[in-house]
């Protein structure tokens, strides 16, 4: 069935598939690790049991999500070599050390403290445990820092030279490589996206349980916290996204023109195309609904500023326009829907109906997975939008692939699809099942606690302390 497909295309599909699947989990665990840090910090500060119980509730979910992220991430660190060996050979000297730093500063930190965070609640002191949680949260952020630096360098390469073997090597300085032009914008936009994704997932779960029992203390608390995030962080994210767009226009104008669907150049100010059907063949957008001059106003902050069109660039430099056009619209639409929900919750809070408004709760449940969709859509926009290059403007995707036969890539692609669907399908099912349990008093820690400490304390006594701690915490909640 794959005879007519070339190995490069199959390798692209495989990478897109594995990276998209992987991205879902870190997007969740970056935000959730920070949320857990906040919950445990609040618990230590206030001593209120509701925070301890919410911590334990989300910790179980974090354990599953993090495990999925780890195993899907190992795949990626090898896929550069298996499927993109030419790219690895040429770009390895520049991006390799950054990824090396990701491993030694982030992955080990997360993994080293994760065991204590998940299973060590009764083994180490409260403050030390909080420290472990903080280290895991820090690790997720540091990991995002490095991998987004790598990604940004591939989009806006800087600070490099090319040696006699055609390899990219560091030129001016590592600082210029790491803090390449698009990196600060991408970092802020992506990490904020991860926080929002988690906030809406938490809000959706809270709302789901409020619909069943609006007096559930844990559900009320998590819903309220999530809605504060929605109302405060979504505007920041929209602003950051706008800045990121301006930065992209400066460095990758073709990508922005594809996002906007601007085939023709606009010497007197570009319209903003809201909807339409982009037709790459005919180089036009059919049935378009557009607002005149607004495109230039957004991108140039001047309604009459001229803007080029895709027609100004050779066709072989165009990314697949329709994909980028649509994925961008999905991301933006979700962003504004998030803002809407945030404002609605603010209104409800003002009217003291935050925990009563069933319509609001239904909307929040509906928006629960919205962050994941937006993150993937945004990722597709930026990654498909930089085609046909892996290192923008310098190394073509077609020249990056491994010397593999199509059947080998096709077979592994099928294997990935089957295994990922089975494993991560089950993973998502278990996550949803955990989320379907209402948060309650006396939440347990993740279940597989090796509960027999140091060979001296009998397991039963530890269990008893566990329950007492819980009981004490509840007394105050």
């Amino acid at each position: 069935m794959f005879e007519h497909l070339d190995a490069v295309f199959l390798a692209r599909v495989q990478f897109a598939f594995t990276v998209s699947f992987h991205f879902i989990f870190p997007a969740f665990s970056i935000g959730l690790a920070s949320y857990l840090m906040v919950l445990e910090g609040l618990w230590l500060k206030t001593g209120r049991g509701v925070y301890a119980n919410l911590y334990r509730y989300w910790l179980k979910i974090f354990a599953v999500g993090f495990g999925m992220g780890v195993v899907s991430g190992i795949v990626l660190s090898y896929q550069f070599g298996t499927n993109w060996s030419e790219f690895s050979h040429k770009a390895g000297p520049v991006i390799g050390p950054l990824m090396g730093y990701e491993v030694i500063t982030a992955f080990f930190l997360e993994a080293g403290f994760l065991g204590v965070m998940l299973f060590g609640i009764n083994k180490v002191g409260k403050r030390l445990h909080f420290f472990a949680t903080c280290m895991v949260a820090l690790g997720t952020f540091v990991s995002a820092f490095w991998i987004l630096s790598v990604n940004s360098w591939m989009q806006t390469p800087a600070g490099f030279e090319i040696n006699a073997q055609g390899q990219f090597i560091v030129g001016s300085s590592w600082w210029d490589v790491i803090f390449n032009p698009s990196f600060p914008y991408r970092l802020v936009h992506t990490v904020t996206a991860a926080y929002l994704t988690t906030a809406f997932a938490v809000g959706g779960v809270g709302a789901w349980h409020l619909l069943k029992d609006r007096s559930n203390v844990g559900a009320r608390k998590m819903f309220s916290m999530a809605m504060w995030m929605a109302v405060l962080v979504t505007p920041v994210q929209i602003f950051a996204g706008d800045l990121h767009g301006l930065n992209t226009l400066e460095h990758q104008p073709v990508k922005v023109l594809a996002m906007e669907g601007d085939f023709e150049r606009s010497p007197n100010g570009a319209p903003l195309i809201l909807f339409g059907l982009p037709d790459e063949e005919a180089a036009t957008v059919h049935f378009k609904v557009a607002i005149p001059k607004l495109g230039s106003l957004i991108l140039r902050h001047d309604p009459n500023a001229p803007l080029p069109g895709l027609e100004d660039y050779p066709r072989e430099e165009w990314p697949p326009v329709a994909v980028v056009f649509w994925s961008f619209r999905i991301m933006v639409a979700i962003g504004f829907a998030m803002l809407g929900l945030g404002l609605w919750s603010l209104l409800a809070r003002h009217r003291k109906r935050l925990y009563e408004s069933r319509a609001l709760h239904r909307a929040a449940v509906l928006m629960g997975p919205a962050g994941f969709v937006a993150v993937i859509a945004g990722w597709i926009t930026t990654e498909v939008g930089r085609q046909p290059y892996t290192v923008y403007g310098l190394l073509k995707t077609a020249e990056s692939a491994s010397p593999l036969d199509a059947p080998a890539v096709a077979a592994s692609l099928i294997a990935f699809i089957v295994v990922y669907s089975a494993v991560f399908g089950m993973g998502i099912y278990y996550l949803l099942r955990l989320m379907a349990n209402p948060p309650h008093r006396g939440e347990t820690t993740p279940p597989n606690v090796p509960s027999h400490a140091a060979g001296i304390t009998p397991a039963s006594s530890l269990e008893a302390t566990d329950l007492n701690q819980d009981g004490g915490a509840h007394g105050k909640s």
Partner: protein
Amino acid sequence: MENLDLPLIWAGLICFAIFAYVVLDGFDLGVGILSPVLEPGVERDQAINSIAPFWDGNETWLVMGGGGLLAVFPLAYAIILPATYPLMIAMLLGLVFRGAAFEFRWRDPAHQPLWDLVITVGSTVAALAQGITIGAILQGIEVENNAYAGGWLDWLSPFSILTGISVVIGYALLGATWLIRKTEGGCQRHAHRLAYWLAIATVLALVAVSAATPFLYTDYWYRWFEMPQVLWTAQVPLLVAICTGVLFWSLKKGHELMPFLMALALFLLGFIGLCISIFPNMVPPSISLWEAAAPRDSQLFLLVGAVFIIPLILGYTGWAYWVFRGKVGTEGYH
């Protein structure tokens, strides 16, 4: 700083990362491989409990090996991975299955036998693929113009299958000796019986691989048997004999920690043997570690960080093991 042989230092560090991975993930893969012969229920729960807090961190060393290779030996990374493509994919999928099943077996007691089977299959496939990869590297990889030039099944040979099976057996021994240390009662007794047979099998496998290796290339023969280095290389089999003796003695005496340490020592010696055969090549038979190295700037930049951060990593990883020291209980699902 100018006259530091960075490629050599990095080759040492990569070897350290790979060995750290083998030491750490070896025993938890081994426990996975052994889980079907352990009684469902108490025995198996104890066994899997004993590795639960660690497997995430252990697999990070695998990422370190892969990521490090990309950073400092990009050419080796770009040749070895396409050359062993189906093996790498099988290993990754095995690890995906296994890691996920660890989480799932506790969430879903009704399907625990299924997830335990997945753990076993995933662990075995990953171990087998790693072992075959070692064999494939030892037997040489065809390279033209700095790229892999062979087909996608070149790695398959009787020798690579032998190394594959050897690693599965060796990991199982590591797993069994780990369980002697970390568990008690029936599980420990069972692990003890298994360790005895696995020790015999591991030593036989080690002998078979060692005997076959010098015949792959004349270079290997010279590196092992030519004067004067034979005086050094001869110590390896001698130490293997000593460790084997201590291993059986400690099993017989019922020591709890010594068998695990001796199993690790056997792995270390096997690994040293591997390095003696390959050195100074990175991709046998033609690409040396200096040819495979990334430019000096790249190697130096990462080395500066590694020198400071790796001791820190070893520190907090050791602390995590300390927190979960001692025997594990059977408390599973609350």
